[in-house]
């Protein structure tokens, strides 16, 4: 156990989170949602089973009530969380990796490779994402893989753009020059020399991508463009709206799923604060001081605070 704690404290994540309480909470909540859902999945039984009278409000037998088809909302929420978060994570990471590799190669290689890759990136950027996703999702056979593909295709370009810029900036550093002199290949330099230096940028891009993937996925499924037989956050909400849950006042059908989505997205946002502090260490110094200020909201920018403006100043 001690060894694990030590390992965690020295890992990138541990160091990033060390003094960021909000981010620690965010990560804890997100892990609880994700791991909890996958852990409970085999225990709760089939979420699509029609097992009781429809539209029961929460009671002892069905903690979260039942939906319009007599399915258990608790089971549906757990299964939906597991499916949606899993897919969002896979989609977000793939999207970011693809974008990062394309951006790095473009920015680092320069020349015609950059021209070609940049043009593709720019074209992908100007095509509006959600409409394209809707069209693609409508054409392809519905299912999680379609969602995955659609989101990756519409979402990689931003990351590519950002990483191309980062690669251009990093490329001029001396350690890259020395790698070039040593005769390393360009791909190797891009992936093994530049990418690790951009790991925290990658992390913040990935967090953004996962949040985007959650939203877009739920949106597409809510519009009926997913596999409606699969249980996920989006289909839960789709069926809730289909069964006119709002009109009948059956709030228990959509509140749990909605709450899970909100929790998942906001906890990830909290985690991203810690990543920002790694990207920009002076942010951490700033936080440190801000916590001590009496009136942090009234702080003047670019004016060093006086001791009397702090809550406690050592003698």
């Amino acid at each position, binding site marked *: 156990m001690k060894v694990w704690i030590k390992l965690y404290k020295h890992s990138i994540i541990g160091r990033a989170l060390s003094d960021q309480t909000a981010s620690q909470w965010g990560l804890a909540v997100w892990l609880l949602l994700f791991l909890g859902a996958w852990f409970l999945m085999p225990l709760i039984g089939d979420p699509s089973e029609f097992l009781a009278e429809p539209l029961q409000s929460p009671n002892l037998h069905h903690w979260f009530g039942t939906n319009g088809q007599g399915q258990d909302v608790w089971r549906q929420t757990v299964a939906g969380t597991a499916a949606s978060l899993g897919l969002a994570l896979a989609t977000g990471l793939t999207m970011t990796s693809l974008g990062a590799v394309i951006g790095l190669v473009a920015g680092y290689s320069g020349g015609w490779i950059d021209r070609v890759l940049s043009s593709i990136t720019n074209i992908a950027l100007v095509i509006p994402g959600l409409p394209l996703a809707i069209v693609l999702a409508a054409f392809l056979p519905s299912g999680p893989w379609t969602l995955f593909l659609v989101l990756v295709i519409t979402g990689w370009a931003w990351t590519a753009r950002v990483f191309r810029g980062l690669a251009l900036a990093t490329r001029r550093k001396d350690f890259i020059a020395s790698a070039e002199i040593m005769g390393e290949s360009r791909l190797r330099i891009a992936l093994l020399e530049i990418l690790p230096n951009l790991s925290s940028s990658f992390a913040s891009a990935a967090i953004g991508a996962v949040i985007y993937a959650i939203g877009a996925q739920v949106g597409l499924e809510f519009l009926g463009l997913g596999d409606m037989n699969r249980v996920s956050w989006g289909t839960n909400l789709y069926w809730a709206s289909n069964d006119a849950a709002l009109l009948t006042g059956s709030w228990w059908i959509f509140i749990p799923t909605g709450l899970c989505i909100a929790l998942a997205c906001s906890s990830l946002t909290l985690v991203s604060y810690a990543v920002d502090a790694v990207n920009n260490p002076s942010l951490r110094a700033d936080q440190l*001081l801000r916590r001590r200020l009496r009136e942090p909201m009234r702080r003047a920018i670019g004016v060093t605070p006086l001791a009397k403006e702090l809550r406690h100043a050592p003698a």
Partner: protein
Amino acid sequence: MLQPNLLTIEDLSVAFAGAGDTDTLVLDRVSLQLKPGARLGLVGESGCGKSTLCRAIVRTLRAPAYIAGGEVYWQGQSLFARSPEALNKVRWKEIAIVVQSALDALNPVLTVEAQILDVLRAHGRSQGSSKRLQELMRLVGLEPRHLKSYAFELSGGMRQRVVIAMALALEPQLLIMDEPTTALDVVTQAEILGHILALQEELGFAILLVTHDLPLALDFCQEIAVMYAGRIVEQGPSERLVRQPKHPYTAGLLQCFPLPGQKKTVLHGVLGDPASFAHLPSGCPFHPRCDRAEAICTQERPLLEQRGEGSYACYRPLPDLPQEHPLSYGDSLSFPTRPATPLEEAPLL
């Protein structure tokens, strides 16, 4: 003596907030006075807090720094009592700072002209600016055609001069220069400082020159403040300081450089490592490196006290040296003014 001070720093302390309550005090009760038109040199080892002091005066230190105590009076009025807007009026217009990383202080995407204009415009002095710009360039010895240049097209010394021109653009009453010439060769250094000196005679502003080059400061400034580990340990007229250093640290610094006209001696320098702010020794922070330290030096911190010509913070000051000590520093200012003296005639700095 009756002339009022332009700038008075009283017991100024600056600390950096750390995680928990582990703040490090980087400036500890620093006091300085500057009269209009005076030249004060601030010298000390790297990391002793010189830049921190410069930026604390106008409160531009970034987080996690905070001002832990003390006051700064500008023309008799407290700077720390001012609102941020009122403080902004003083910054640059009355007190200009040439920051240490002057080379990074220029915006890479703007021309020199645009940047100086920016300064003028921000303080509402944009009319008649083109003539003023030409004049500024001439003041720092640059050709006016460089107004159209970008920072990357200029050499290090030229960029430095541009920053100095920007600092002079609003005719400040106090020019703070944080190691303005450290990155430059001695010839360029002498030339730039010569320009500034000539300008000062013309315009009458005061100068606070920060450097770790003691001979340069002795030559350029009428008065020197020596800093060690965030405290002023000795202050006095250059002439007195070089003849009769009182604090062992000052003496050590003087030992680091050969003095012109001095008999051949072995240079000792200051032994030991600079004090670390995290583990400051008790008592006088210099005592671990001091060969004159006694029991009291390890226990109590000596305070800066006015004694004769200047002041020093030491329990065991050096005795007065015999008067015939043959030194030539502080006798005359030996900076070439425009046009630059030919190399072989340029005096050594």
